[in-house]
């Protein structure tokens, strides 16, 4: 095989010459030439679907119109992207979509953010000449995380391909045929009953309002306005480098201080930082790793899998229930925080747990499912009462008329709001692993890890492996993101092909910064920028190791005694469920 540059292909787009690498499509060439061709079913990084036909162009010498997303660029090709024939075709296609779409725009949750709206506007659609049968389907409100409104579906297939190719879950797919085609879970089951893990990648992929998260807005607003409860909020590490995007700030801008300030203006009494709970998770999990390393037992096997990602946990429960013992018994940072707020915090402030209302702001839709898991909470008091996605949070701010970009910087409340850099990096794929290694090193050797940045586990890549030397013992670790890669890794572990000691799994591409609750669209460039920003936040911290976080030290001294203590187990650890599996019919 010849190693070197691919051949370049020269072609003309609208009479302008452009060169792209061999194997690229006409769409790639057009983008390079600065010509915007509309797409609807295209997902960058996946094979083209060719379903929407919006990207059609004219190619000299060819009869029909050609789909630019899939047709390879050929030398000396002459492409025209804006001829009357092409424009007429695109307009007719948009008109056809509008003809079976409900005209609910003004009261739709995607109003202003909808790709169909943008296309209708761009192509100046003034009338829809076809009207007849349309798609009328009941919405599916069964899932605690995701709502399906099939009537708004334009059948672009992005959700199906995301769930199948990126996540390898395939909870939804095309069913029936012809005009009656509709995207449904198998046998039209309620989403709640399926293998859906609530990761929300489908919501990010959906161009219209057909898929969206279950809204906690009304309930949160009511509690805030009632004023009867002591409202506490926690904010995830990923949100602080993401929510600025809604307010014109650059991707990755660190708006931590503004978030604290915004939450207080909403009426939140106490503002804590999920990053603190992440530090706590590290303390507990690193100790757990060491226990499994030094005294292995049948019910405490290696490799140890992280458990902070609820999408991953449900995935394992459905697909590999026999591997549940490998999961860390640690709760996720969100749940650890909720548990402590309703116990430690409430007690210290003389509050009854039922008078405390815990809101969490997350980049994630699966966290809504997690907060409602029966393993958490006491009696009728939940540990986490409501979860808001990054999107919902920005909506709440808009509702209250808060000018986010102009807010002053404030800090979180100290008790459970002080964090180390270790807590911040949880947002990126590899962050949990790196943090755990920083602390595990200290717990084993008593020393501080000098080379604190662990590059081999960082980055957008779906599978990263590394061998770590801890004072003579080397352990092999793996970091995985996206569930398709996770499935492959677990299969390898089961087959005995890999000898990992510790594995971090995040369901979303790039980690939580690519979560289902972030701004719409599947865009790896944006995720990469957020990842960089996360590691920058870590660099701004004076304290970058969890065990050096003064509030963590205090918490153990005052309340928890030590990692793995009885109280720790009660408040900070959990168990899992065996769930049925649609794929194997179990």
């Amino acid at each position, binding site marked *: 095989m010849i190693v070197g540059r691919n051949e370049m292909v020269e072609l003309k787009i609208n009479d302008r010459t452009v060169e792209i690498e061999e194997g690229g499509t006409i769409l790639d060439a057009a983008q390079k030439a600065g010509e915007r061709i509309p797409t609807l079913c295209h997902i960058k990084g996946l094979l*083209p679907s060719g379903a929407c*036909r919006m990207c059609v162009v004219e190619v000299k010498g060819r009869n029909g119109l050609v789909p630019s997303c899939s047709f390879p660029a050929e030398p000396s090709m002459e492409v025209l992207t804006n001829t009357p024939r092409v424009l007429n075709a695109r307009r*007719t296609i948009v008109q056809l979509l509008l003809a079976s779409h409900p005209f609910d725009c003004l009261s739709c949750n995607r109003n202003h953010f909808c790709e169909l709206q943008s296309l209708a506007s761009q192509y100046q659609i003034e009338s829809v000449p076809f009207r007849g049968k349309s798609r009328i389907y009941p919405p599916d409100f069964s899932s605690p995380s995701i709502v399906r409104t099939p009537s708004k579906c334009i059948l672009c297939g992005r959700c199906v391909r995301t769930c199948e190719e990126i996540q390898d879950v395939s909870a939804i797919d095309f069913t029936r*045929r012809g005009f009656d085609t509709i995207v449904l879970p198998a046998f039209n089951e309620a989403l709640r009953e399926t293998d859906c893990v609530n990761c929300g990648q489908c919501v990010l992929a959906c161009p219209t309002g057909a898929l969206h998260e279950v809204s906690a807005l009304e309930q949160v607003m009511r509690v805030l306005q009632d004023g009867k409860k002591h409202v506490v909020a926690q904010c995830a590490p990923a949100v602080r480098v993401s929510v600025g995007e809604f307010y014109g700030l650059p991707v990755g801008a660190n708006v931590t201080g503004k978030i604290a300030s915004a939450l207080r203006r909403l009426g939140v009494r106490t503002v804590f930082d999920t990053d603190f709970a992440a530090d706590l998770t590290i303390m507990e999990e690193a100790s757990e790793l060491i226990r499994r390393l030094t005294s292995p037992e049948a019910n405490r096997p290696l490799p140890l899998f992280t458990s902070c990602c609820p999408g991953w946990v449900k995935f394992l429960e459905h697909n590999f229930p026999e591997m549940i013992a490998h999961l860390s018994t640690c709760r996720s940072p969100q749940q650890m925080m909720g548990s402590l707020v309703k116990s430690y915090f409430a007690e210290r402030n003389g509050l009854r747990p039922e008078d405390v209302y815990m809101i969490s702001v997350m980049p994630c839709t699966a966290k809504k499912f997690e907060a409602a898991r029966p393993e958490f909470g006491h009696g009728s008091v939940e540990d986490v009462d409501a979860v808001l996605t990054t999107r919902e949070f920005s909506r709440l701010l808009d509702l209250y008329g808060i000018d986010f970009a102009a807010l002053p910087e404030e800090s979180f409340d100290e008790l459970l709001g002080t964090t180390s850099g270790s807590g911040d990096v949880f947002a990126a794929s590899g962050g949990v692993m790196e943090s755990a290694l920083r602390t595990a090193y200290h717990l084993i050797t008593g020393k501080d890890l000098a080379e604190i940045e662990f590059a081999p586990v960082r980055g957008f890549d779906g599978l990263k492996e590394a061998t770590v030397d801890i004072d003579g013992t080397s352990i092999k670790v793996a970091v995985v993101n996206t569930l398709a890669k996770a499935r492959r890794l677990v299969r390898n572990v089961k087959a005995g092909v890999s000898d990992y000691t510790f594995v971090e799994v995040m369901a979303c591409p790039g980690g939580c910064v690519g979560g289902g609750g972030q701004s719409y669209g599947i865009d790896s460039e944006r995720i990469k920028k957020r990842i960089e920003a996360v590691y920058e936040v870590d660099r701004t911290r004076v304290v970058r190791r969890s065990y050096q976080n003064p509030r963590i030290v205090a918490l153990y001294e005052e309340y928890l005694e030590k990692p793995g203590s009885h109280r720790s187990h009660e408040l900070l650890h959990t168990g899992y469920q065996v769930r049925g599996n649609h794929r194997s019919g179990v």
Partner: protein
Amino acid sequence: MTVTNPTIVLGMGTCGLASGAGKIRNVAQKWAESHSSNITIIPTGCIGFCQAEPIMDVIVNGGTRISYGSVTAQDAPFILDEVFVHKHYLLDGVLGQHPGRNNPIDGIPFVADHPFFKKQVKYVLRNCGVIDPSSIAEYREHGGFLGLERALSLGRGGIIQEVIRSGLRGRGGAGFLSGKKWQLASQEKSSTKYLVCNADEGDPGAFMDRSLLEGDPFSVLEGMIIAGYAIGATEGIVYCRAEYPLAIERLTQSIETLKKEGILEKPLDGAGFTFSLRIKKGAGAFVCGEETALMASIEGRRGMPRPRPPYPSVSGLNGNPTNVNNVETFANVPHILREGAESLASMGTETSKGTKVFALTGKINNTGLVEVPMGITLREIIYDIGGGVPDGKDFKAVQIGGPSGGCIPKELLDIRIDYESLKSAGAMMGSGGLVVMDSDTCMVDVAKFFLSFTTKESCGKCIPCREGTQRMYEVLEKITTPYSQMGSEQENLYRFNMVLHLENLARVIKDTSLCGLGQSAPNAIISTLRYFRDEYEAHIFDRKCPAKACRSLLTYTIDTDVCNGCTLCARNCPGGAIVGEKKKVHYIVDEKCTRCGKCFESCRAGAVLVS
């Protein structure tokens, strides 16, 4: 065939069985018992003259076959007596004799001279209706596997050259040069390649492939083995629609036979080339006749097409180079290899070589399966072979190529059947369905019927086909709905609006659809609009159906000069739409009339007028 005892050959294809061949077999066996003798009953496939099924052939004079058509279970014993006991051959219903190698019998016409068969050339259908499809011995007697032998000696390149020189074009409808297609697949460097036979035959009313699979399955399989060898594929898959159980049965048996004979799954040449075949049943989707959707279906996925390039010859089944051909295409191959490229190239036109099998149906006297050389005119097929339109009605149009094809009107009856001529007339060869229509057929209704098929069968992946065909269908529905059942003025304006957009919509669907289904779905409308625009205009503007076929557009009135007030119509009207007193002229209330036609049927005075 060399036979000794009383031997008959019975057409036991699906058409024969459906007309009663099974009963005739039982009757014949009883006849033999009553004459204390054995009788050999050789089952055969469809000879093509479906109008005359059940067909029973008798073998006499040491090999001459005489065919009798439209045989009933009552007739059969009489015929058997006459032929085998009294040696009388010229009976009612005789179709003719096939002399074979023997001297012809005086006084009996030849089957080959029968108007139905005279202009046909049985190249690919030569064995159908002649041999027992399950007998490999008979297949070999008729030259079977000599093609494969010669192919192996020519080598891969030689085979491909032979097929290219023959001019064989894909018989599934697209008409791509088959040899060229094989060449592309053979050029790919891959250790795994597949050969696929498209036996999905989805066009409603088409049965060319079915007859071949039922009547001469070995020829299709031999063609596949030759093709597999040529391109370097070691596995072949026949994708056969599940609605053809007899074809699947014959194919399964044939594959087992070939395995026993050592032709499948054993080395065929010195280099150890081995070919295996399996059958994959379809699951009821027309769209799976499209090659990329077909491959998706074989892979176990939803049958939706995907964009091409990459073409299947480069990346097909499971990403490997794959060659997909139609049943009829493969069936041509053994004959080309055995007799040489010229045997095909000598027939047909400049660009369309060889023959084509057509399923001739509709308003025609001789319905059946015909094989004609390319270049024959439509007039010859319909009037000479088909025997013209029954009941003295006028010919109006013929639909070629199924729901994706187009119609050819009376003015173009002298068009030559070849790929290019049909395309320029707005139709297409398609897989070979020919539906004849007379003056009682409404062309708007025909377009509506075909569109209802395509819109239901659309896979739903791409917007122009999924949404667009539904909207086109709705327009046709609206213009065949009566004024009185339409909602309001607004609805009517709305209908006009949609009609104005119809032609643009049809063009966009044709231009932008992902696969052939969508790209050809508008043909039904475009071609009927081209030749029968006046019928459309009558429906839209005059709200009338000139062919009187769209029932809901008919108006029933009572001729006041003729009506004698007998009240028969009023009593028979299911909708209570007729008012009138005894012995007084009656009146039909239009808003209540459901156009069922009962009054027209009941009136003895001929007073009910239909317009």
